[in-house]
């Protein structure tokens, strides 16, 4: 990740994805006439809206889905887009936020469990880069894992960004009542960890041994039956 820009931790920042580009995670879960279509991908919010219908039509055609899907897909994408944009003008407090990101996903046969820390203040961060490196380092052969990992990271970052907007709003309201309570706000958000707490061992930045397991990535390949089991679990 690139070095931090010199943003003060206390000033509110305009809402955006805390990544180098405003790419929004879009999830699709559409059911038409007994057929269910689930999908998840990354969308560039700065692209024109005409792209939505083009993309929807394309997807429907490529997957040979019935025509009704195209409109549904387009609608779903647009709703999520508008939702993202509704946050646009607002401010969010980032503070000194290092958040743990958890990966717990199954892509075809690959099961991934991982946890790591992400710097919310780093607006140059790139989940795509992370995901590509992740797959390369762990020798993951299934090419669909990459986008899934990137998506999962983005989704969580998105959630956190939304939360921080909410807290910023709260703090503004609260400010009218009280003053100088910034630090308490940042501490009150459960997801954030204080830097000092994190590096409780003052003499080195290395993690304690007992925490290693938590932060180690685990990649598992499933057999056919296990895949079936997982699928049933998810559908339920």
């Amino acid at each position, binding site marked *: 990740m690139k070095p931090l820009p010199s943003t003060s931790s206390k000033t509110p920042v305009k809402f955006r994805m805390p990544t*180098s*580009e405003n*790419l929004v995670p879009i999830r699709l879960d559409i059911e038409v006439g007994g057929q269910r*279509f*689930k*999908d*998840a*991908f*990354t*969308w*560039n919010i*700065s*692209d024109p809206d005409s*792209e939505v219908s*083009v*993309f929807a039509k*394309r*997807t429907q055609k*490529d*997957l040979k889905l019935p025509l009704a899907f195209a409109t549904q897909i387009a609608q779903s994408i647009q709703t999520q887009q508008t939702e993202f944009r509704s946050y646009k003008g607002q401010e969010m407090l980032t503070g000194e936020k290092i958040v743990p990101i958890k990966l*717990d*996903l*199954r*892509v*075809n046969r690959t099961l991934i469990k991982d946890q790591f820390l992400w710097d919310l203040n780093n607006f*140059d961060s*790139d989940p*795509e880069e992370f*995901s*590509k490196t992740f797959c390369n380092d762990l020798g993951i*052969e*299934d*090419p*669909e894992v*990459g*986008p*899934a*990992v*990137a*998506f999962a990271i983005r989704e969580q970052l998105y959630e956190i960004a939304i939360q921080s907007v909410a807290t910023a709003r709260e703090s503004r309201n609260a400010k009218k009542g009280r003053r100088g309570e910034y630090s308490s706000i940042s501490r009150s958000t459960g997801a954030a960890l204080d830097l000092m707490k994190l590096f409780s061992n003052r003499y080195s930045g290395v993690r304690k041994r007992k925490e290693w397991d938590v932060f180690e990535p685990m990649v598992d390949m499933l057999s056919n039956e296990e895949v079936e089991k997982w*699928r049933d679990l*998810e559908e339920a």
Partner: protein
Amino acid sequence: MASTEPPAAVTPPSSKPNLLPLASPTIITPSAAASVAVAPTASSSSPATPSVATPRPIPSDAEVFHIPSYSCWFSLGDISECEIRCLPEFFDSRSPSRNPKAYKYIRDSIVKQFRRNPSSKITFTEVRKTLVADVISIRKVFDFLDAWGLINYSPAALNKPLKWEDKDSKSSQHAADSPAGPSLDSTPPVRETSKRLCGSCKSVCSIACFASDKYDITLCARCFVRGNYRVGLSSSDFKRVEISDEMKTDWTEKETLQLLEAVMHYGDDWKKVAQHVGGRSDKDCITHFIKLPMGEQFASSAEFGSSINKLNQMKDDNNISSSSSPSKRLCLSPLADASNPIMAQAAFLSALAGTGVAEAAAQAAVTAVSEMGQGEPKADIRSLHGVQGLQDASITSNGSDVLKSVEEAHSGVNPKPEEKKVNVEEVEEEIRRVAEVQMKQIQEKIVHFEEVDSQIEKEWKQMEQMRDILFYDQLNLLKHERAIRKSGQQAAEGVRTQGDYVS
């Protein structure tokens, strides 16, 4: 958790496949290697040996990929001007996720994914599920690669119109599909029929047309050259069909005889000739007369080259240009790259006239143009000689007229179209003269060769003499040498004995 499951491709990507050139219009570009095309391997992908800077012959299990000739700038190693132009958003640093590195990643992944299974088309959705990038970027690159035939392209789809000809071909395809049926109902496959309509542009085929028996389609020459036929047809499916009034009804012997008589009597007055023959227009008479095999091959091609314009003045309705032998059926592969209008014209004309004739025309035109203005009638005769033997058109009064008029034209006199008489003997004399001249030429050549021969013999004798002299000299030298050695030895002995004597 993501749980959609399209088919997963799990094989590791093959490194740097080799691309090879194919016959036009598709080219498979070489990434590093030289020769022989291998049939494209659709099934298992054996990894190709990595390409090296120096050209090597491709190993037999290497992969071969086809891309169209207009995409030959493509290479997996770098980004070309064309891509920068077509997808500027990746190169103008306006958005951080759209940068050249990301572009290259997306492009290379898509191309590699397609090449793992080149026989089947890859869809956008398949691709975007495997790439770590936002879907719109992927779609843009995918569409770009698709349009340029770098993916989802197979040599069987050769006749797909180029993307900028889309509008053109779409409309003509619609036209081709529907009238192809009804227009051919009236024209049975046999050639002796009435007017033929072109399937795509719906114009009457006048001079020549191209018919495909396999699919029962007729196209006029223009449409054929431009490639306005249905997808799935190739240029080799079509055969060239000559259309001239001649084809409609054959001349019977009686009619031919009448024609000859009339020509002898009336000479150049074709109207009277036509009357005499009965049932044929004057145009028909002229064309048939020219085509009569009189066994001469001379000066018929004077209509090409510099005098074509003068001829056209003289005979405005002479269809000489279309009168290549009716029995010729040419299979042409027109220039598919008809985007250049001049080439398209040239292709159209050559398609009309046939390859032999076109060649002759080109040669004659070149010689005539280079010799124009010299005012030598001989120049024309030479160029005419050069074009001999290409057509079966007969020597007629027109032939000799043309020769005379050509000479006159060169000296600046306007030819009078009405003064010539039929004189077969004159023509024969001309031919005799020509034959004599040629014989003389051959004789001279023989003499010349004899001279050269005798010269060579002389030189040979001289060489022998020299060799003998040299040999003689060598012998002398050896003798002297021996003599000197002997005397040397004696002298040495003498010295020794003297030495003994002295001491």
